[in-house]
């Protein structure tokens, strides 16, 4: 049984179509990413699954149960981290987790949760004494407090420094090992590529592409880029003749950038051409397309705009 089934989901705010007819299945124990720029409808979609917002139309099943008709049963198996990290004032980390544990029928022991998010030594600290990354980890601990089957993390690393982001990724990897289904929204490409089994790319309330990161790249932005320097330089025509080269651009007389869908053949071809012309090829770098390129290709816009 899929963890989550969404059919024809829509949500309007006035004239704005925040979510515009989404259908989606998220498999059990999958780490699923929803990638898109701000305002794409990621959070609205999540909040409808989490029972925070009523859809205008469409159906959502969580673990086979309808969100519309059995919200309490759904809430028991969901773990939710909301985008904005908020806590009660004047409670310690441990007290906060205890309090939220009391909201559910089953609760994971607080010490165990703190170990999972690596905050055991902060149990007695007040929440406002923690760093932003540590607070995010507390909110992830709260999302796990009922030992949920399905965990929602809404932009868990937004605003964090690279080290704190790595910590969060490690925690998500731990969840994979515990057989949980995890749904993450993000606008960080690396995060989606690093963590997610499958990714849905959203824009203007629609899913514009869906698949594993590799599938998305192969389908939408299959070209790799290769940059190199050649001394003495070759002519542009000579470079263009190399196996598999699609486009060529030249800078500073001897710096070339080519695109190809067969990077291995093209690399061999570049060395072949250098050998044949008595030239030396160096400073070679290769860059495979990313989900950023996929997004750019489909929408014509950059993700971070």
């Amino acid at each position, binding site marked *: 049984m899929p963890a989550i089934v969404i059919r024809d989901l829509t949500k309007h705010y006035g004239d704005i179509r925040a979510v515009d007819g989404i259908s989606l299945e998220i498999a059990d124990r999958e780490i699923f990413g929803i990638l898109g720029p701000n305002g794409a409808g990621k959070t609205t979609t999540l909040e409808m699954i989490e029972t925070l917002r009523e859809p205008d139309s469409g159906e959502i099943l969580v673990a086979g149960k309808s969100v519309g008709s059995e919200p309490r049963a759904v809430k028991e198996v969901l773990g939710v981290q909301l985008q904005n990290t908020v806590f009660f004032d*004047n409670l310690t980390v441990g007290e906060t987790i205890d309090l939220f544990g009391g909201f559910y029928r089953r609760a994971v022991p607080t010490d165990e949760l703190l170990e999972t998010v690596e905050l055991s030594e902060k149990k007695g600290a007040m929440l406002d004494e923690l760093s932003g990354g540590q607070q995010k980890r507390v909110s992830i601990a709260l999302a796990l407090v009922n030992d949920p089957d399905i965990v929602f993390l809404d932009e868990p690393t937004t605003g964090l420094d690279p080290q704190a982001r790595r910590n969060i990724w490690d925690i998500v990897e731990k969840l994979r090992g515990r057989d949980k289904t995890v749904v993450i929204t993000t606008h960080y490409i690396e995060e989606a590529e690093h963590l997610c089994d499958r990714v849905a790319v959203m824009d203007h309330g629609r899913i514009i592409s869906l698949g594993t990161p590799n599938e998305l790249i192969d389908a939408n932005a299959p070209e790799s880029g290769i940059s190199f320097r050649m001394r003495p330089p070759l002519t542009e025509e000579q470079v263009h003749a190399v196996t598999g080269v699609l486009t060529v651009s030249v800078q500073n007389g001897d710096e070339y950038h080519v695109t190809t869908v067969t990077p291995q053949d093209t690399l061999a071809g570049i060395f072949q051409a250098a050998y044949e012309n008595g030239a030396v090829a160096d400073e070679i770098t290769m860059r495979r397309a990313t989900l950023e390129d996929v997004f750019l290709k489909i929408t014509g816009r950059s993700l971070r705009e």
Partner: protein
Amino acid sequence: MRQFLGMVAASLKRTYREKVALFWMFLFPVLLMLLLGAIFGGTGNTTINLGVVDLDRSVVTKGIVSGIKEIDGFSVREGTRKQQVDRLEDGRNNAVLILEEGFFDSLKQGKAGKVTVVTDKSSPTVGEVANSAVQQVIAEVSRGIQQKMGMATPPEVISVTTESITSSELGYIDYMVPGILALTIMQAGVLGLGLDFVANREKGIFRRIKVSPLPLSRFLGSEILSALVMALIQAALLLGVGWAVFRVHVKGNPFYIILLVILGALTFLAMGFLVSSLARTLKTATMAANVVVFPQMFLAGVFFPLFLLPSFLVVVAKCLPLYYFGDALRQVMVRGKGLNAVWLDILVLVGVGLVCFALSLKYFRWE
């Protein structure tokens, strides 16, 4: 149930750690009480307040009344028997003189005229002074009138029946302490939980609770229970300090007092919730809550008895729920009356509470 108590405990902890709130909830009312008590608590009364009730309305009795009015040291006030005895109970009269019907007729028949003097058992000296002074005055005045009219002087000019009531040992302290208690509970209700609610709503905490299976109403219930616990602690503290320092009279049934404190706390919590439901932001909610609190603080007669106020302000005071809460606490706590004696106060509090609660449900929002 254990979970629910856990939530109450967490809520109490949060309040306990909010030092500024603690100051306003506990220290400030105690300081205010000590200050008012120190300034106005003295009972030094040099004049004797005498209530006079003339039921005979004859030439003689009118003469007696005007004769008494001329004596230094007496402050005389005329009225009905009920009015004047009530004033005695309130401690505003030291004694009440009642000139019974048929006073003049008795004199004309050569018998003693009937007079009743009501004094306050609990301050016997003042009562005694009043009693003898009154009898002396009446005797003189009526003897003069009799001689003037050529009537035979009876051996006893008047026959005095002495009655006494208890309870007018009450002083300013006994008025002020229940008032401060009412004020404190109102402030905690309107400013405390209601504003906390707006702050948490603004922060988005309720959204986080809403994605859990816990009904938000149960969470609110735990917050209300913790607010009631706080109100009872406030009551115990204020009465404790009031008794230790000023010997305030607490002779009401403790169960009734607790019941009234809870009722008042609920009424003002409902008022606070109404404010928090109507206001969009913490800023407007704070302003609105102060608009609710301040007029009541100064106009509802919590610091000083209403009879000290100009009459139009008395009308204003009686429009404010805090007046009824203060009155109920005073009657039951200090005078030891039963709940039936304050039925109007209770009715007003329940009514205001229910209306506020119903309206706040109507305008309620979680986010």
